């Protein structure tokens, strides 16, 4: 993989309504300095035990989504990627910052017309479909409420939707329980597409499915992009899935985007230490090809990323990754790095003091192991290595 090409390697036809060269000029969807906070625990507990109550799930995110592109949001659980997706889709109020669609700021309470533009597919097709509605009932209700097609055409349009996602027309009369997991996810995708959205937000669409079924859904999403010119925001923890499907990847860590790059570039030349760790942590099929004497290659070296992610209730000062960072310096404890890009390469951004300068050569400062939060958040392997 050379990674010099900007895209994911898979040449996708540009959608007819992608707007040609204008696509890059004005993003279809953009978020500026967006924040989503949760209040956790009781006020009393906060008073008595001096516990921080504000959970900053999304903490200052800038993101742009161009028409027709597929952007992936990756990160560990708790990094805020799902919350960000919900907020972008208008299903969760935003505490700070603004979301723009087609250049227009979206209000907190979106109109029905605005809601239609961004649709979601959820992770678990077993709980995201109403078990008491047939597929036809589900689609019909949606189509009537949003006046997508005239009443007389609801049935034929529903059939068409099912055909689009690869299901038989008979499925209209069936209940969700009559489908397998992969088929349910197809129904969920049909439901999202029913409103002819501009943007499809898919939150871990395949992680609840079996491996052999995952492929069918991933292929479907890719075909739909080509066919409908959909803009796709894919949330996933599986970088292999992301590499297969997306043009650009944004890596999230503790509520912040720490690196954004075209897919090929991110995999071949990651600049943020977290991204490097994330990539190194993926088990690879080909690794077994290396000669070895009966022991696993895993036994020889330390973990790709040490420790656990700190709690979003106690985000470390300075760079939020410094508690697990192998190259953390004194500056990382005090100065929060902003997203910067390399000279002459606007597409690749990373939020690390050393992202585009030479990696620091001196010994790391004593700081990185400083516990930032609850008991579990300390790098775990340090003690192990001494033995």
């Amino acid at each position, binding site marked *: *993989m050379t990674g010099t090409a900007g895209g*994911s*390697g*898979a040449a996708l036809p540009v959608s007819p309504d992608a707007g040609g060269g204008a696509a890059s000029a004005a993003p279809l969807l953009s978020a500026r300095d967006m924040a989503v906070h949760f209040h956790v625990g009781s006020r009393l507990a906060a008073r008595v035990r001096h516990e921080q109550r504000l959970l900053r799930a999304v903490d200052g995110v800038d993101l742009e989504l161009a028409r027709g592109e597929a952007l992936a949001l990756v990160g*560990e*659980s708790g990094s805020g990627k799902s919350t960000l997706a919900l907020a972008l889709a208008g299903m969760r109020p935003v505490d700070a910052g603004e979301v723009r669609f087609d250049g227009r700021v979206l209000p907190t309470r979106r109109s029905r017309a605005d809601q239609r533009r961004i649709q979601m597919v959820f992770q678990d097709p077993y709980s995201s479909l109403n078990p008491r509605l047939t597929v036809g009932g589900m689609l019909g209700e949606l189509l009537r409420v949003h006046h997508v097609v005239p009443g007389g055409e609801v049935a034929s349009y529903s059939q068409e939707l099912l055909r689009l996602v690869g299901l038989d027309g008979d499925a209209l009369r069936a209940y969700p329980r009559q489908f397998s997991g992969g088929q349910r996810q197809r129904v969920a995708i049909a439901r999202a597409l029913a409103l002819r959205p501009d943007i499809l937000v898919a939150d871990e669409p395949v992680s609840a499915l*079996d*491996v*052999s*079924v*995952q*492929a*069918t859904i*991933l*292929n479907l999403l*890719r075909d739909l992009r080509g066919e409908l010119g959909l803009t796709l925001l894919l949330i996933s*923890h*599986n*970088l*292999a*899935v992301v*590499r*297969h499907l997306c043009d650009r990847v944004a890596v999230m860590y503790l509520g912040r985007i720490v690196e954004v790059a075209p897919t090929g570039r991110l995999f071949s030349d990651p600049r943020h230490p977290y991204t490097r*760790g*994330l*990539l190194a*942590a*993926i*088990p*690879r*099929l*080909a*690794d*077994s*090809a290396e000669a070895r004497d*009966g*022991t*696993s*290659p*895993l*036994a020889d*070296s*330390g*973990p*790709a*990323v*040490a420790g*656990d*992610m700190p709690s979003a209730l106690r985000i470390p000062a300075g760079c939020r990754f410094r508690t697990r960072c192998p190259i953390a310096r004194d500056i990382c404890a005090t100065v929060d790095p902003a997203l910067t890009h390399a000279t002459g390469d606007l597409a690749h951004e990373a939020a690390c003091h050393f992202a585009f300068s030479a990696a620091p050569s001196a010994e790391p400062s004593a700081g990185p192991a400083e516990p930032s939060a609850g*008991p*579990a*958040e*300390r*790098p*775990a*392997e*340090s*003690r*192990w290595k001494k*033995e």
Partner: protein
Amino acid sequence: MSEPASRRRAENTAAGGVKGPMLDVRDLHVQIASRHGTVRAVDGVSLEVAGGEALGLVGESGSGKSMTLRTILGVLPPEAKVTAGQILLDGVDLVPLSRSDLNRIRGPKISMIFQEPMSALNPVMRVGYQIAEGPRVHMGYGKAKAAQRALELMQRVGIPDPERRFRAYPHEFSGGMRQRVMIAIALSCDPEIILCDEPTTALDVTIQDQILRLLAKLCAESGVSLLFVTHDLPIVAQLCQRVAVMYGGQLVETGDVREVLLDPRHPYTLGLVRSAPDVEYVRESLVPIPGSPPSLVSPPSGCRFHPRCAFAEEDCRVLPTPLRVLPGGRSTACLHYERAAEAAAADRVGP
């Protein structure tokens, strides 16, 4: 740290491995009574795990891999019955053993790591005592000695500050730390073999990496055998020496990890490899396995994979497909395995 297992392993290898496999499952059949009929969840599975070896058992959900594991540990649901076969652990058949005899074996001989540590740990018991329980019951340790053992184990599995964490409850731990506690419990009586049921599926990729490295290190150090059930082929590729692929309650391919996963001899294995997106190798399009897994109440005749198989012939519908040993010691259940081999070779020279 007491290391009888490693001593045993040393003896084993010193004796030239004449003792035979640590775990030897022979022609195991498990049937579950259900409303729709008898489910043949495990249908003639034979496995061998040598001392100090890690064997990966892979397959989709419903393939019977977890049921095989549960049968070995003797924790089947009440409606499931072992109808035939033997499970030899160090030469002793576990199938006819009574519950109390099994209890004596679980812990010192065989232990298990579950997928979801939060539901496998006791939520109202301090983790230190949960780890110390095994040594107290099985090894006759007193309270102080067992606590000492628990602290050692916590340190060994990389739980920082064990003295303080000893008195913590499971909910105070992160997912990765909970899984470390599970591993400490599994190791607490120094077993010969640990059964792992998707122990990292619920974890993030960075934490999964930590846990897999820990397991690999512990295996290499103490010589404990692993039977590792997962649906994730790359994990097996990295952790295990040998792999067994299950489909519809039967084994369809076994052999060296490298050979089986990179050069499959069964269309189902090939399908699994082709359908999973890989970070290193981006395919133009993923190749899903068509159709859906077979019913285990009335499985297809002949080869169970034939309705979904691109290479199926007439004989696949009728002939039984037991595992056949191929040159090199690997085995496959496919009658026309050369075709899978050709397709795998074509894949390699392709893009």
